[in-house]
Structures are given as C-alpha cells and as structure tokens.
C-alpha cells in the first residue's frame, strides 16, 4: 500500500512490443463496446482508461503517455455518435498525468495502483464532464454514488489489468 518517492535512477522504465501496443488498446476498445451488450453492468467499467493508465505508468514517458491516451480516446470517440475529442482530451490528460506521476512514484505494488486508478478515474470524469458540458452543451448528470461505485470497480479491475500488462512489458 505504500507509495514511495523514488529518484530518477531508481525508476524502472518499460516498453511494450509493437503487437502489444496495437492489440491491447484495440482489444480494450472492442471489449468495451461488446461486453455491455451481454452484461449491462459492465458499462460502469472503462477498459480503455485502465489500459491508458497501465501503459503510461509502465513507460513513464509523458510524451508516449499523452499520445497513447489521445489515440485510445479518439478511437473510443469514433465509436460513439458524440463529437470526436471528448474521450480524446480526457485520456490525453490522464496519459500525461499518469506517466508524469509514474516517474515520481513507485507504482509497482497493488495498493499504489489501486489509489492511482481511483485518482485518475476521477480526473478523467471531471475533465470529460467539463468538456461535455462546457464545449458540447450536453446535459450531464453527476451522481456521486454512481461515480464512487465506478471508481472502486475500475480500481479493482485496474489492479488485475496492470498485473496482466506486467506480463507483456519488457525492460528497456
């Protein structure tokens, strides 16, 4: 559970192979679109967000983080009927933030990952809410119980997904 500050030299930087870089986000977006049809409760999860955080914290490169987040978000936007950029902007911010924080903190243990996911889930929702309401003019309903439940559920799933990502990441 301990979140410890680390120096730049202590931080491990990982990379992902090209197939993993392409296929994992695609699979996440695909499952996000397909699973809620069969299991409606699954719509509270945001798999692309979890993959964005997972990639960003492992690579620890803000540039790679923001670009990965942006691309995943735009892909997610393209499947909706809303303007492209809502998820794109939110996930760009999350990708940048997660990778920047990954440099400063040790995010290798499950507790740290749990808290990190909660934090960035809230950031993602706030940014999304502001853009959707401020720029697009969508009617948005902010429900604290729903957000809290989603937050915890995503954080739990995030811990599992990060463990899976640990298996495919490669040390540089």
């Amino acid at each position, binding site marked *: 559970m301990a979140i410890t500050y680390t120096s730049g030299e202590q931080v491990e930087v990982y990379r992902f192979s090209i197939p993993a870089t392409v296929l994992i986000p695609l699979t996440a977006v*695909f499952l996000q679109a397909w699973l809620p049809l069969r299991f409606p409760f699954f719509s509270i999860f945001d798999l692309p967000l979890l993959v964005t955080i997972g990639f960003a914290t492992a690579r620890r490169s803000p540039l790679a983080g923001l670009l990965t987040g942006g691309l995943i978000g735009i892909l997610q936007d393209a499947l*909706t009927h809303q303007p492209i950029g809502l998820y794109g902007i939110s996930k760009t911010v999350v990708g*940048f933030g997660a990778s920047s924080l990954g440099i400063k903190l040790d995010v290798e243990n499950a507790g740290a990952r749990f808290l990190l996911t909660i934090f960035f889930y809230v950031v993602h929702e706030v940014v999304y809410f502001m853009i959707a309401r401020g720029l697009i003019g969508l009617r948005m309903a902010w429900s604290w119980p729903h957000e809290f439940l989603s937050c915890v559920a995503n954080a739990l799933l995030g811990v599992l997904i990060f463990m899976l990502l640990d298996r495919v990441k490669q040390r540089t």
Partner: protein
Amino acid sequence: METVLGRYRNLIVLVGVLFAQVLGLAVQVKRTTDSEPTRLIRIWAVGTVTPLERALVWAQTSSRNVWHNYFYLRGVRAENRSLKQQIERMSLEQVRMSQDADQARRLQALLAFKEQFISGTMAAQVIGSSGSELSRSVYIDKGERDGIKPDMAVITADGIVGKVLRVYGPTSLVLLINDQTSGVGALLDKTRLQGILRGTPSGEVVLEKVMSDETVPAGEMVLTSGGDGIFPKGLLVGRVTKVSPGSELFLNIRVRPAADLSRLEEVLVVTKIDERQAEPDQTGAARAVDILAERLPTVPSKPENTEKGDAPGTAAPGTVAPTTTGSDVKPKAAPPEASAGSGAPAARKTANSSSSSGTGSGTSSGTGATATGNPAMKVSPKPVKAPVQPKPQPAVQDSPH
C-alpha cells in the same frame, strides 16, 4: 531558448495536442448537420472493431442455435400445445377485431384519412454498442450494402428501439430512444395527449411537453404519434411509470420502454413506410355476394345433367340445388352428416356435380364452408343481405344449419 523548449517540451506537446483536439471539437460542434459526411476516422474505427464483433456474435448465435435446435428440446411439446391454444384464442379475437377494423376503415375513408403502413422491414442483429454511457447507441449488422439509410426506424416485436443514425458499408449505428440526444413524437393511448419522448443522461426515458394541468395515470401506454416523420403512428413505446410535477408548466412523465434496450439482440429496421388513404374493405361484401351466388340454384344445360342424374337428389339441377343447399326437401333426402360435408357418398357426389356445373361448389361453400374453414363464411356471416337475395329462394334463407 533551446533550453526552455527542451525543459518544457512535454508540457508544450501536451498543450499543443489538447489545443488541436479542442479546436477539432469546436469545428465539429459548429458544423454538425444531418448532411455531414461521416468522418474517415469513424469509418476506420468502425471498420476495425465491428468485424470482430460480427464474428463473435456469429459464433455465439451459431453455438446457441445448435444447442437450442438440436439438443435442448425439453418442453417443446408442452410449449407447442400452449401455443396452439393461444392461436385458437387469438383466431376468435381476430374475427371480432376484423369487424372493428372494417368499421374503422369505413369511417377513415369517409374522412379521407391517410394511414401509414409499415410495408417493408429488415431483420438485423445487434453486434456491438458505443461503449459509452453518454452515447446510448448500438451497431447492427446491416448497412448501406443492405439498403439501410439514415433515419430509418428500428423496432422490435415489443416496441420501438431507435433510429438509424449513421450508415457504414456493412453496419449501421442506431441511436436508442433513451439517449439524451434522441427525440420521438409520442402520444398517450387513452388521453391522446401528445408530447416528445426524450432520453436522460442516466438512460431513462421521459415524455416531455405535456401540460401540468393534465391528468396522466401511471401504467398508461405510450405510442408513437407519427409526428417525427420517422416512426409510423401507433407503435408501442412503453408505459408510464411515474408522473410528477416538472419544471415550468409541464409534467415530468417517466416511461418504461416496452423493448428491453439493455439486452437487444435482434431488431427490425423499417425500410419502407407506405402512406395511403384508407379504403373500406370490399372483400367482405364481395365474398357475401359470391357466397350467395354460389348458393343460388343455377340453370345448367340439360344434356349434361340428364346424363349425370342417376344418383338420388342429383337427377336434375333444378332439384339438386335445393336439395343440397338446404331446401325443405333436403333434410329428408340426406342425413345431417352429409350436409355438413362429412363425406356421405350422396352428398359428396352432389357437391362434385354442382361444382362441375360451373357455378362454384354450391354445397361445399354453402354448407361445408364453415366446416372446411372458408374465411369468407367465418368473417362475414351477416353479409347475406336482403337486397341481394333473390325472391324465389326461400330455400337459401332456410339454411340447413
């Protein structure tokens, strides 16, 4: 300068990427029109994701079909029996309703009323969703190649589902009625109050623009009004679940959709809607006249009948017809079973001889029609109207049954 750029490189890139996306959003919001072409990025994304979904749905459906059609047949016999009973009940109801419908058509024709008919539908399978709670939409496995066009209505047997929003080659995006950007013209079944059906951010459906001084009971059915130009009038939308005072002068009416929008599998896309003026159904009257004509005795040519006239009651047409169609002679000549078309030899022979005379099967339609299920006889027993009846036919009126 170089050091500043190098030091804040990440931040500068972040601001640049965000700025580009915000700019893109602003452009999209400003240019959003119905005629806007689909963006290439959407085509790529849909083209990447939907083939996987389609394959997965196909595999799932195939395995389910194999299981249900070949292995899991428990209870089919009982289900079949209950369905047959249901069909019988519904047949009786249909007779009653067809009479009401005829009457309604006649009245509509008097008023030069134009009706909308769904004359073409296409079954489609739901293969995926948008994956976002703020975009309640699904993808179906039919697209431009199959003749799907934007703004076509999408329904299920239970009720309406939504409308086609975007069309790609092999798939289409369907906007559900519980999305907050959707709007459907709707009316309440009994009170006939009209309103606009909208989705809420939380995925519920509400009926808006109904004045607060109106009384709307919970449980009332909500139907499409046809005012939106997408859904034909009279399709079931759902039922009112809760009514409360809303903002301003309107009621807040919550509606539970009849179709289960969270578990959609198969839908029907309405590909063609015809609008035509209602016409009174002429078939009932025509049938009655036909039946009456068939019951009337004919004047067949003599030689033919004299040759055939060896059986009792069929010797001469003039005597045959009254005998077989229920004259006062008939009950004596033929047993009751024969007149009901049960297959007594004499009666059968008589029927054959009558039909061969070119006047139609006098016996079979006149007496055996009910037994054989002729719809003309079932649906229009009353049309045996006095003006059409010829005078010298007391035997026709005095039907054996």
